[in-house]
């Protein structure tokens, strides 16, 4: 069968929203819903694979509202992979909640439809974020992701999840409102210095970025950086991140950490590409490096003293986002490619970590790591996956994260920031010690409660193993996978300002 790029984009945008309407109506039986969810997500994944194969990175697709280039293609691959993983792990997660004696779904029944409708809408809006061509619409979509995911974070409406959601909505909405102010200033610059054609169109603006007024562009960039930085979870504005990630259902935490914050980085990158020629590289690079490394520095002490397993993972996400933003501030091709690769690796590994942590939490009935002992003896398969994913996220050699972290740090030493590189390495070492200490305590020592049997079924073991192996294969064999390699090189070129 022959498809062109436009058809595939419409398929990717249509299927999730069709399924979420079907799920929201909530007339279907539970099993039909689970299977439809898998079928729709797999169809989207197939469309993403086909799109990757036929898409030529050098010639972006330009539609009326849609713009697809190598950078957005890479984001679609990340979101599509997570979408597939979500669909194939959701049944096991929701069933576990239903079968437990005091599970939320058991008490209230038939909430699966609502959960699926919200989750698929969430993924759909993230696809929109990376596909639209207009800075204003990107803003609208990012704000919409906050609102939809807020309902997912508060899905169980417990006291702590309400608190987390309230903080999430309030902090993120204020931040995003500042980004709106930044976008308005960009539009003002466009009206006064470039012209009234193609309002806020990304491609048009990036072709005319030389004509902007430097002072106003700097003013706009400050608002945009603070606004989208709040959504990424950069250090002084990060208050919502650990709460929302730890209180959401595990599947949602995985999507939040793996895909949503990445989308915010993507929109920030789009804005940087436009504003960079006017502002100059030094200002942007300084802000990115400072806040990136500051975020890592803030995350480390919280990991070391943490008791709550999902909060610990949330702080580990913060560390990774900090590293990505710092690598973005270096503006060299090596670091930028590594950053894009790290987005992919982090998303896959963090999703599997959150899923594993959620499973352990449900079975042990506690989030407190101090109360979980001897997992290696009682649940060998689950602890094996936990250990592998933890080792992967910390950046040990056989796994994908190693390659991306290594090249990002290599970037520090190539652009005359060796001391920043050393500081980052020390902070990452602190992270490694903190996380390994907690996890090894959970895995080792003698069990103090009765075993409840193995936690993972066949399907979710396969999915988690698949995610880990996929990230490993893509990172290690990147030079052999020409399609992805071209895509990454082209995306890094776009960030550096070489728009086709």
């Amino acid at each position, binding site marked *: 069968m022959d498809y062109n790029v436009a058809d595939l984009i419409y398929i990717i945008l249509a299927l999730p929203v069709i399924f979420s309407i079907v799920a929201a109506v909530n007339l279907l039986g539970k099993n039909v819903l689970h299977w439809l969810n898998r079928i729709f997500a797999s169809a989207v994944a197939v469309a993403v694979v086909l799109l990757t194969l036929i898409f030529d990175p050098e010639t972006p697709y330009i539609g009326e*509202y849609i713009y697809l280039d190598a950078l957005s293609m890479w984001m679609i691959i990340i979101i599509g992979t997570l979408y597939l993983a979500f669909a194939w792990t959701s049944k096991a997660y929701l069933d576990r909640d239903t079968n437990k004696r005091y599970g939320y779904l058991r008490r209230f029944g038939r909430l699966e439809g609502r959960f699926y409708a919200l989750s698929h809408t969430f993924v759909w809006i993230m696809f929109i974020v990376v596909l639209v061509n*207009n800075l*204003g*619409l990107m*803003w*609208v*979509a990012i*704000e*919409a992701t906050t*609102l939809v995911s*807020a*309902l997912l974070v*508060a899905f169980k*409406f*417990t*006291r*702590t999840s*309400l*608190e*987390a*959601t*309230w*903080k999430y*909505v*309030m902090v993120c*909405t*204020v931040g995003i*409102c500042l980004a*709106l*102010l930044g976008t*308005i*200033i960009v*539009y*003002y610059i466009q*009206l006064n210095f470039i012209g009234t054609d193609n*309002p*806020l169109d990304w491609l048009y603006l990036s072709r005319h970025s030389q004509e902007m007024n430097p002072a106003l562009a700097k003013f706009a960039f400050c608002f945009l950086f603070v606004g989208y930085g709040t959504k990424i979870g950069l250090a002084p504005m990060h208050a919502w991140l*650990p*709460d929302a990630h*730890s*209180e959401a259902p595990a599947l949602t935490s995985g999507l939040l950490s793996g895909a949503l914050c990445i989308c915010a980085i993507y929109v920030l990158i789009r804005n940087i590409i436009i504003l960079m020629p006017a502002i100059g590289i030094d200002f942007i690079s300084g802000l990115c490096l400072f806040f990136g490394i500051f975020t890592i520095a803030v995350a480390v002490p*919280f990991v070391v*003293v*943490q008791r709550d397993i999902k*909060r610990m993972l949330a702080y580990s996400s913060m560390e990774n986002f900090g590293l990505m933003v710092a690598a973005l501030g270096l503006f060299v091709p090596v670091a930028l490619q590594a950053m894009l690769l790290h987005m992919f690796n982090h998303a896959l590994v963090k999703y599997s970590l959150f899923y594993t942590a959620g499973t352990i939490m449900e079975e042990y009935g506690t989030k407190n790591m101090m109360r979980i002992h001897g997992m290696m003896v009682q649940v060998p398969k689950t602890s094996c996956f936990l250990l592998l994913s933890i080792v992967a996220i910390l950046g040990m050699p056989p796994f994908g994260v190693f390659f991306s972290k290594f090249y990002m740090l290599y970037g520090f030493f190539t652009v005359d920031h060796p001391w920043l590189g050393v500081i980052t390495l020390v902070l990452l070492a602190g992270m490694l010690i903190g996380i390994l200490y907690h996890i090894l305590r959970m895995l080792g020592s003698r069990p103090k409660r009765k075993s409840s049997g193995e936690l993972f079924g066949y399907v979710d073991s396969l999915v988690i193993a698949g995610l880990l192996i996929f990230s490993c294969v893509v990172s290690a064999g990147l030079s052999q996978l020409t399609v992805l390699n071209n895509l990454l090189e082209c995306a890094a070129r776009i960030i550096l300002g070489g728009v086709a």
Partner: protein
Amino acid sequence: MEYLVVFLVLVVFLQTRITNLKRAVVCLAGQSFIIAIACFFLGLSNGEGIHALLPGILTLLVKVLFIPGAIYHLVGKLKNEREILSASNVNYSTMAAAFFLVWGYFIVEKLMPGSVGRDIIAASILMIMTGLALMVLRKRAIIQIVGLITLENGIYLLGLLMTEGLPLVVELGVFLDVLIAVVVLVILTSRMRLSFMTTDTSVMKKLKG
């Protein structure tokens, strides 16, 4: 236009002093109404056709009728709820608002000397800062929502003045987002009333570190 700015500043100052939830919501509706009139005024003086009228009509529907209506309906269900503050705290908020107003004029003079909409820009900076102050300093969920809408109104007014309105699609999207945001916040507040028996956000302090 000058009268509008005077009324706007008056309403914002009133907002810093109100502790009764119902009156706060009515005040918010009044503030949005002034913004709607400003939209019509600016829209008709700049252009014609649907794009000139649409922001005003949308503001009227969404921010004057729907949002205050939804919050008012929620407030009706709450009993014995008012912002608990000492008189000095209210006075500090008003003082802060006065400071923001002076500061707004100062910024306008510094950044865009001699611009036409000097008063409106200062008023929108006042709204942005007062909205932030309401969200940070006040404890009641309803007042925090009012602060959020005030902040949004301020940014919207600033955008309207600086760029004569965003592109149409973006404008519609922004309104949709505000609408959904209020729906989500109203859901959360009513859930909060069920689980905590109060809408005082200062009881929520379990998540730390």
